[in-house]
C-alpha cells in the first residue's frame, strides 16, 4: 500500500529525515517510535503533504501512485488520513459544514453523488454512536474551545467519517487521560479492517497497550534504526531510548 524508499527531507536547510525505508501493507498496523526530535512528526506531515519540507531524495508510492506529486487534498481523497498532533482551532467554520464539505469531496473523487442533508446527518449519527461520542462536538466550530481530549476524539471521528485506507496517527495519545485514550484507541480499533492500514507515531508505549501493532520501528536521528514485532515496544519501554542512543553512538 505504502512504500517509502530512501526518503531524505530537510526543513529550513536542516536535514531531518536521512534515508527512511518503510513498507506498509493492507491490514497492517505499524508503530513508529522514537525520542523527541527524531523526525517522527516530520515523516507524518510529509506523508500528508505539508509544504514546509524540502524533499532531498527518495520516493514514496501510495497504491502505485507517486505520493509526493499529489496535493494534500488529493492525498486525502485517495485515502490518506493524518490525525494531527495539535489539531487546529478554526473559529467560524462549523464542524458540520466542514465535515459535509470533506465527505462530499471524497465522494466526488470516487465518482459518487454528494450526500443529501438527510443522508449526511444519518451518517453523522451512525459514526457518533459507533465511537460513543457526545453530540456536542459537531454543534461547534472546528475544535474551537475543545479540550485536548476532545480534539483528539474529534480527529478519530473525522477518520470514521472519511474511512481512510491509510491512517497516520501523529502522537494521538499525547495529552490524553486514560479514559480519553481508551475511547480513542477503541475508535481506531473499531475502524480497523483487513483493507486498511495504520501508522501510529508515538513517543510512549502506553498507546500500544490498546492498539496492538504488527510492527514497531524505532526512528532515531532521521533513520529507522531498529524494527521488530510488538515486543520491541515493551523492550523500549523497559530500557528507555538511551538504549538506542547508546547503541548507535
Amino acid at each position, binding site marked *: 500500500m505504502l512504500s517509502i524508499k530512501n526518503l531524505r527531507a530537510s526543513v529550513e536547510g536542516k536535514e531531518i529525515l536521512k534515508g527512511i525505508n518503510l513498507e506498509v501493507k493492507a491490514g497492517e498496523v505499524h508503530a513508529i517510535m522514537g525520542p523527541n526530535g527524531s523526525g517522527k512528526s516530520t515523516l507524518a506531515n510529509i506523508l500528508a503533504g505539508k509544504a514546509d519540507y524540502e524533499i532531498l531524495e527518495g520516493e514514496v508510492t501510495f497504491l502505485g501512485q507517486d505520493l509526493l506529486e499529489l496535493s494534500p*487534498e488529493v492525498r*486525502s481523497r485517495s485515502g490518506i488520513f493524518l490525525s494531527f498532533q495539535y489539531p487546529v482551532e*478554526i*473559529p467560524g467554520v462549523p464542524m458540520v459544514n*466542514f465535515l459535509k*464539505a*470533506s465527505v462530499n469531496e471524497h465522494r466526488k473523487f470516487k465518482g459518487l453523488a454528494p450526500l443529501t442533508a438527510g443522508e449526511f446527518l444519518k451518517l453523522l449519527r451512525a459514526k457518533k454512536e459507533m465511537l460513543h461520542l457526545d453530540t456536542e462536538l459537531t454543534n461547534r466550530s472546528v475544535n474551537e474551545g475543545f479540550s485536548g481530549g476532545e480534539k483528539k476524539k474529534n480527529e478519530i471521528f473525522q477518520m470514521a467519517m472519511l474511512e481512510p485506507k491509510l491512517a497516520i496517527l501523529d502522537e494521538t495519545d499525547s495529552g490524553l487521560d486514560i479514559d480519553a485514550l481508551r475511547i480513542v484507541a477503541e475508535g481506531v480499533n473499531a475502524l480497523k479492517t483487513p483493507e486498511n492500514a495504520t501508522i501510529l507515531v508515538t513517543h510512549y508505549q502506553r498507546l500500544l497497550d490498546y492498539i496492538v501493532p504488527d510492527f514497531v520501528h524505532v526512528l532515531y536521528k532521521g533513520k529507522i534504526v531498529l524494527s521488530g514485532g510488538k515486543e520491541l515496544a515493551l523492550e523500549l519501554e523497559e530500557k528507555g531510548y538511551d538504549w538506542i542512543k547508546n547503541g548507535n553512538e
Partner: protein
Amino acid sequence: MSIISEKITPADQLVSLFEHSRETLNQGSSPILNRMREVSIKRFAQAGIPDFRSEDYKYTNLKPAFEKNYRHELVRETGLINLNEVFKSNIPQLDAHLVFLVNGWFYSGNNPGAELPKGVVLGGLEQIANEQPELIQNYLNRQAGLSNDPFVALNTAFSKDGFFLFVPKGVLIEKPVQVINLLSSDENLMATQRNLIIAEAGSQVKIVVCDVTLSASSILYNTVSEIFAGEDALVDVYTIQNLNNLSTSINSAFCRQQRNSNLVTGIVSLHGGLIRNNLKVTFNGEHAEANVNGISFTDKKQHVDNNTLIEHSSPNCLSNQIYKNILDDESTGAFAGRIHVARDAQQTNAFQRNNNVLLSDKARMQTKPQLIIDADDVKCSHGATVGQINEEALFFLRARGIGEKDARMMLMNAFAHEVILKINLEPLRDRIDELIEKRLNGEISRFHDQLSE
C-alpha cells in the same frame, strides 16, 4: 514682478457650480433645506478637498475622485425602474417595506406606506420637508451641522432629496425597511443624498440600505444620514455597498442616542473603487448601547476606509465595535476608530477591535485606534491585528480533502462570520453570506465588468 497663475481647483468648480445653480437648488425645495445651503458652501469653500495632510483623511485621498468631470442632477430626472433588473444586481431580496432611490432621488413609483403601522412616515425627504416640515425641522442637520467634514458641508449645500423615516413613539415596525439606492448614469455623475431617520421613544425599526451601481460610469456618491434614537428605542441600520471600480462613495452617518436606546449598525463593503465611511455615535442619555460593526472586501486597486467616532457624553453607556477587512491584490484599507469618554461619563464601557487579513504581499492596511478618556472610572479596550490566512488551518482543511480554493473561501467566510453574526436579521445574514460567497468567487466583480462591455 511675478505672474501667479492660479489653478482652478475641483473645489472652486463646485463652489462656482453652486453660485450658478442657486436658484435651481432652492427651487421646489423646503426652506428647511435651503436655509442651510449658504453657510455650508462657505464651509466647504474654506476647507476645500482634504489631502494627506489632514489627520482625518491621511489614509484616503479623495482628490483624484474630485478631479474627474461629473454631471450633476440638480433636478429630479425620473425614469422607470425595472424591478427584475434591479434584483439581478446582487441586491438581497427580503420580505421588507421596500423603497427605491435613483441617484439620490426618492422614487415614488411604489408605495410602501400602505402596509406600515399608523403614524409611520416613510418617503422622500424633499416631499416630506415640504408637506410635513414640523416632522423634520427639529432634526435635520442638528448633528451633521456640527461636523467639520468638508464633504458633509458639500452634501448639505447641494442635497435636495434622500429617504426619510419617522417612527412614532412606541411603534414597532416588524418587517425591515429596505432602502435601495440605485446609481446609474451614462456619463460620470456626482450624486448627493440626504437621509433622516427618527425613531421616537420606545419605537423599534430595522433598516437595510443597499447601495448599488447599475452602470459602468464613474459615480461620486456623497451621502449623509442622520439617525435619532429616542429613549428605549431599538434601531438597526445595515448597509451593503456594491459599487463599480470607478466609483467613489463617501458615506457619513451621525447617530444620536437617548437614554436606554440600543443601536446596531453593520456596514458590508462588498465592492467599490473607493469607499469612505464616517460614523459618529453620540450618547445623549445614560444606559444607551451601540454595537457598530463593519466588514470589507477589497481587491485590485480598491480602497475602503472606515472612520468611527463614539462620543461617550453620558455615563453608563456601552459601545462595541468590530471592524474587519479582507484585502487582496494591491488593495488598501484603513480603519480609524476614536472613542471619546467625556469627564462625567463614568462607568463607560467602550470596546473596539479591528482585524485584518492580507491575501497578497501588495495589499496594505492602516489601522489607528484612538482613545481619549477624560473620566476615571471606565472600561475601555482596543485591539488591532493585521495578518494572513492561517496556514495551519488551511493545511488542516486540505488534509481533509477540501481543495485549496474552497478551503481559503471557508476560512475567509469564517473570518467575516463574526461580523455577520452581529446582524439581528436572519434572512439578511443568509443573503449576506451568499453575497460574500459571490464576492469571493468573483461573481460580483464580473457583474460590474459586464456592464462596462
